[in-house]
């Protein structure tokens, strides 16, 4: 289950950092993946399968992606590569975004990573009894998805969607915006300055002191803004969607793990 962040939502520093972190992780992952070259066809097939199941409609605008299963079957290094490949191809058809491939890769990979670690820890708890591994698989899926979703909520909190942080304000065009103060937001060129300030609203207001005409234009946005509303609002909409898709995915993963336990126990 995956909620894709689209283009134009996250600030430049966040999505650029996402690319940088993903690039570093990929270098490491490729190094280890090359030692397990035999898994390449399986990883590519899993990526293809993941793309295919994402097109299965669930009635609501969410979809499953089986990344937990990917983590269990090919391990964390190949899972990162699968996540990157899947997100790249998804971005090409307008699912997710190109600038946020890095962030989306990490979020999707987190499902596989948690899945790999949790399943490894709990898979043998019930022994070889019929159906127990399947249940463990299902639980692994649900908790992995929950942890990944928490990461996403944390990202929303960390980004703290303050209009002044997200939109780039252009000081030279102040006079164009005065006529539409509720609808037009000016863009700041110096985002670094704003990232230092974003937790402190008073300091943030002081930044605009020198641009007196800006203050009047911005009061509609940041006067009403609050961190709690930002995350709370997001959760109110996203959490029910998450629960719906996560339960479906957990059931499917459980069924597949049960199936594999009978036919290919060596893979688990």
């Amino acid at each position, binding site marked *: 289950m995956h909620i*894709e*962040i*689209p*283009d*134009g*939502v996250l600030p430049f520093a966040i999505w650029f950092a996402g690319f940088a972190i993903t690039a570093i992780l*990929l270098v490491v992952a*490729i190094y280890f993946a*090359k030692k397990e070259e*035999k*898994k*390449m*066809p*399986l990883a*590519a*097939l899993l990526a*293809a*399968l993941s*793309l*295919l199941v994402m097109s*299965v409609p669930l009635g609501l*605008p969410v979809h499953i992606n089986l990344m937990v*299963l990917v983590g269990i079957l090919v391990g964390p290094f190949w899972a990162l*590569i699968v996540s990157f*490949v*899947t997100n*790249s*191809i998804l*971005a*090409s*058809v*307008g*699912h997710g*975004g190109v600038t946020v491939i890095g962030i989306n890769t990490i979020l999707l990979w987190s499902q596989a990573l948690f899945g790999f670690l949790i399943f490894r820890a709990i898979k043998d708890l019930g022994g070889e009894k019929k159906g127990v591994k399947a249940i463990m698989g299902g639980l692994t899926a649900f908790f992995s998805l929950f942890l990944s979703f928490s990461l996403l909520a944390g990202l*929303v909190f960390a980004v703290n*969607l303050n*209009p002044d942080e997200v*939109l780039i*304000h252009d000081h030279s065009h102040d006079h164009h915006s005065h006529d*539409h103060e*509720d609808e037009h*937001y000016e863009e700041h060129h110096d985002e670094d300055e704003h990232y230092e300030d974003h937790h402190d609203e008073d300091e943030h207001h002081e930044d605009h002191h020198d641009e007196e005409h800006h203050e009047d234009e911005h009061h509609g*946005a*940041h006067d*009403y*803004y609050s961190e709690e*509303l*930002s995350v709370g*609002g*997001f959760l*109110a*909409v*996203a959490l029910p969607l998450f629960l719906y898709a996560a339960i479906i995915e957990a059931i*499917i993963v459980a*069924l*597949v793990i049960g*199936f*594999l336990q009978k036919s*290919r126990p060596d*893979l688990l």
Partner: protein
Amino acid sequence: MTGIGLADYYASKEGAFQKMSAYSKLIFFVSFLFVTISAENYLFPGAVFVTVFIFGVGTGLPVRKMLMWAFFPAFFASLFAFSQLVAGFGFPIIFLVRAYVAAYLALFYTFTTPYFETFTIFSKVSPFLATVLFFTYRYFFLFLDIVKNKTTMVKVRGGSERRFVSAGKIVGFLVLEMIDRAERIYSALKIRGFRGRIFYSSKKKMGRSDLALLIFTLLFVITSKII
């Protein structure tokens, strides 16, 4: 046909944009994307959208489908944006516009550029990842065929009423098929001398239309920074 399948089909046609080099289209795409996501108002995302829409119609793309599909990321943008509704409607709407136009732009690029041409450009950065991308692309269509056949057979055999169960069985079958297939594929690759890389050389050279596109892109970006 899924989005990927349809995009691939149109990208392989002989339209004006399809004939252009992937490099020029990629520069066009990245530049217009930058203009969209850094726009301070609705003017330039709107201009990007209108430009790409006109190009799409002129190239004979399925613009109605593309217009619909571009709403998908806009929905996710709304999850982020409408949590900010208390800040007024303008703030969430700019997210939706950016997300929508960016998605539409991505769809235009994909519908006019075969995947393997993009992967070839990417192989200059990482041949390993490009190889995985090539394989994924190939196997996606393989699975698509398998699913089409399976769902047809399920219907023929009267299984279509229990859609969820049938879908689950198809997924289960696909997973097992995939695992068996992966081993056979690896063996076949080794027999064919696979050394970790897939080779593809684009036959398309940069021409006058590529130059025109690049000049247009440059002028558009400069204009967006001036206005």
